[in-house]
């Protein structure tokens, strides 16, 4: 079946400015085309249904060393969510850290077709790609962590941005990565010595540079290389009351880098970076301050990191932050130092409505998403699994699109959180058009994915069809119906093939792994000095370090021409 016609659906395609128009979408050979032969094509009757581009998730931890360690330390998490095999699909387990196949199935059931694995220690790159290969039904990409990578820090220390750019270009190819990921810049290197950085002007031990220099330096490098996505940033002081000050500082620091109107940075899971107050006792939301700044500036994009009230697992490269969480909860935990590259930590976390801090966090995420006026800046994520598992997205969709749903949940929250929350004063309810922006179009645009997140001619034929009739169903009032509909797509179409029908997987296909092949005028040479360093500081020889082409099952190399 190479031709397909989706007839009569209400199409929401924000990148092409289409807002609920009744129209047909034609597909040929896995791409959207102008028209197809109606007699030959497979017809999908979408009358009374909502048609959107396939969902895009900009930030979700689904593969790699920390995800796998998360699986290992949580047997009690798996036993409550066992997935049996069917004639078509494979068995697996959830809950907060699902197995690879279950990850693919559950994303696809919600109409998602492209996901980004946002943190990969370069040393774990081979492992990450092996896991990504095993996630079916989705196109994927992964971001190497290079904000605390020794070579990068050395280049920045010397002020050699061009050398740094060539090195980053080499790293993208070596790790088969897609974007520059920076986690708690400077903090992870300090954590190797049991310390952390607390402002963006603290000095990183042994390197004598500051987080500000790392962030701005890599943002400039990102521009020199013309990478499709901006730097992907997890801020300093994440998850600590009062941290909104350093978040604002970070955004201000990046103002100087933005010159051509394109975003230069993406602050991920913004909720965790928007705490006011100076202790857990008086911690409150800084959504007003943060959103005020964002509404007046256009050089950054963000995603929510929305808290879901459930038992989940936190995992991040931010080792010092995970240590803070351990001190708070006393739960079992893992902390690791990934040689010269990064650190990592994992700890289970139960977000409870009756905990004031958790309920305030829940409120912050939604306040930010609703107070930031431009939906092209703020996207929907849970930072899976840190603030909640991804298959709870329908809940967030309900909270965003329905004030009634928000109020219903807020009523069950801790009294203190109810009193402090700004939510009762916010009337905004996202429309289906805005929903399509925060769940696919905006994310694809921020990621620089030209063929994703829209249904224009030439785009990949990734389509999600939901059982929502915008003419008869008011999603703000009937949020439970809408929630069911977005959780169980009527159809998910991946590369022109129907993979999900009525919330059930009907076909297994492999997704592509996208990575960047950055062409610089002068390629970085791996010299003897670098090999010597590998021998001295790494547990692997240089020769065994790169991810070879055969590691990537379905490879989709995107060529980028750098300006260095």
């Amino acid at each position, binding site marked *: 079946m190479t031709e397909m016609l989706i007839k009569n659906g209400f199409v929401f395609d924000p990148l092409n400015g289409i807002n609920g128009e009744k129209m047909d979408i034609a597909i040929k050979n896995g791409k959207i085309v102008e028209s197809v032969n109606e007699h030959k094509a497979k017809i999908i009757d979408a009358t009374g249904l909502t048609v959107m581009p396939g969902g895009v998730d900009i930030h979700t931890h689904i593969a790699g060393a920390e995800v796998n360690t998360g699986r290992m*330390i*949580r*047997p*009690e*998490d798996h*036993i409550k969510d066992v997935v049996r095999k069917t004639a078509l699909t494979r068995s697996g387990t959830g809950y907060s850290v699902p197995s690879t196949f279950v990850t693919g199935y559950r994303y696809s059931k919600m109409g998602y077709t492209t996901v980004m694995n946002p943190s990969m220690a370069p040393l774990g790159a081979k492992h990450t790609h092996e896991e990504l290969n095993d996630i079916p039904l989705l196109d994927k990409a992964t971001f190497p962590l290079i904000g605390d990578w020794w070579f990068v820090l050395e280049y920045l220390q010397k002020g050699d941005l061009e050398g740094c750019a060539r090195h980053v270009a080499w790293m993208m190819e070596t790790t088969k990565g897609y974007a520059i990921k920076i986690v708690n810049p400077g903090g992870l290197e300090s954590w190797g010595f049991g310390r952390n950085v607390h402002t963006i002007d603290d000095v990183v031990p042994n390197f004598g540079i500051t987080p500000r220099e790392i962030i701005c330096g890599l943002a400039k490098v990102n521009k020199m290389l013309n990478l499709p996505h901006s730097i992907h940033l997890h801020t300093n002081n994440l998850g600590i009351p009062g941290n909104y000050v350093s978040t604002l500082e970070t955004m201000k620091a990046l103002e100087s880098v933005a010159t051509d109107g394109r975003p230069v940075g993406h602050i991920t899971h913004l909720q965790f970076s928007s705490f006011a107050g100076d202790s857990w006792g008086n911690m409150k939301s800084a959504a007003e301050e943060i959103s005020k700044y964002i509404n007046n500036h256009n050089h950054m994009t963000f995603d929510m990191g929305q808290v879901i009230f459930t038992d989940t697992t936190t995992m991040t490269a931010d080792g010092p932050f995970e240590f803070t969480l351990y001190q708070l909860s*006393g*739960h*079992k935990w893992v902390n690791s130092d990934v040689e010269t590259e990064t650190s990592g930590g994992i700890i289970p976390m139960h977000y409870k409505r009756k905990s004031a801090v958790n309920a305030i966090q829940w409120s912050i995420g939604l306040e930010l998403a609703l107070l930031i006026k431009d939906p092209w800046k703020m996207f929907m994520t849970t930072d899976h699994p840190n603030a909640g598992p991804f298959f709870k997205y329908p809940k967030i969709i309900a909270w965003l699109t329905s004030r009634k749903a928000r109020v219903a949940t807020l009523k069950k929250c801790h009294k203190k959180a109810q009193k402090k929350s700004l939510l009762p004063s916010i009337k905004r309810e996202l429309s289906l058009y805005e929903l399509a922006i925060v769940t696919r179009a905006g994310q694809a645009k921020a990621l620089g994915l030209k063929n994703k997140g829209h249904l224009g001619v030439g785009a990949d034929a990734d389509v999600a069809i939901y059982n929502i009739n915008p003419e008869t169903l008011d999603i703000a009032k009937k949020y439970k119906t809408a929630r069911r509909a977005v959780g169980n797509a009527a159809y998910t179409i991946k590369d022109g093939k129907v993979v999900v029908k009525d919330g059930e997987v009907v076909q297994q296909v492999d997704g592509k792994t996208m990575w960047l092949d950055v062409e610089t005028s002068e390629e970085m040479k791996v010299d003897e000095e670098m090999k010597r360093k590998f021998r001295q500081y790494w547990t692997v020889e240089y020769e065994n370090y790169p991810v070879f082409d055969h590691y990537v099952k379905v490879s989709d190399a995107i060529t980028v021409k750098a300006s260095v």
Partner: protein
Amino acid sequence: MIILTPLKKFQFPIQAENINPDVFQGKSVKEIASLPVWEGNKQKKLDGLFKIEETPAETPNITIKGDASEVRRVGQGMKTGEIVINGNAGMHLGEKMTGGKITVNGNASGWTGSSMKKGLIEIHGDASDYLASPYRGSTEGMRGGKIIVDGNVGSDSGCYLRGGIIIIKGNSGPFLGFHISKGAIYVEKNAGPRLGANMTGGKIVVSGVVEDLMPTFTVDSVKGKVKIDDTLKVEGPFYVFLGDLAETGNGKLYVSKSNNSHLSRYEKFL
């Protein structure tokens, strides 16, 4: 009362969470006979594995006559009623139960009373490992209720206890009361090594020998007798240790003074 008699010696594990007074409640013998159970990887009906009889007696609600050591998850999550097993019981007996009573006239297997919240389990024989302990990796330990074991218990019993009482009239294996935070455990005879490791609260009382006391416990005082609950006071004297200092150090460990002369070296710190 329903009497279940195994039709054969079971070769494969039976998953029988349906043997539960709450499930049987209001059902006829015919309906009970068709309840599903798993034998290995095959689903069977209850009467395919057991002979089912009904007697007019009110209590206990269910009696299993004969060896049920391969019959798992009996009384899982039960709320009310009473089960008597005249023979050995299988794993996960009374797991997560919230009320009622289970009596075993024989030995019990692993994870008996795992994560239970309320109710009473009496074992007139030995209990195996993980008595009252939560599933691997979980911290949701027993919250309330009472377990009485006439014989010995295996290793890792009473882990993550958060309430309730466990009384062991025999010996206990290693790691008894790992990470308990509340509640009480009483061992009438000897306790194995790593007793009370990582405990953050609650109490463990041992009237027998504790050969191997963890170094992260500090002696606090000597006490004449200890109250386990309203019905049970144990005569000492006992050394009182506080620990585990690797955690908060708020747990209390009572070890018999007369049976543990090797611990007299702690007296100089009193």
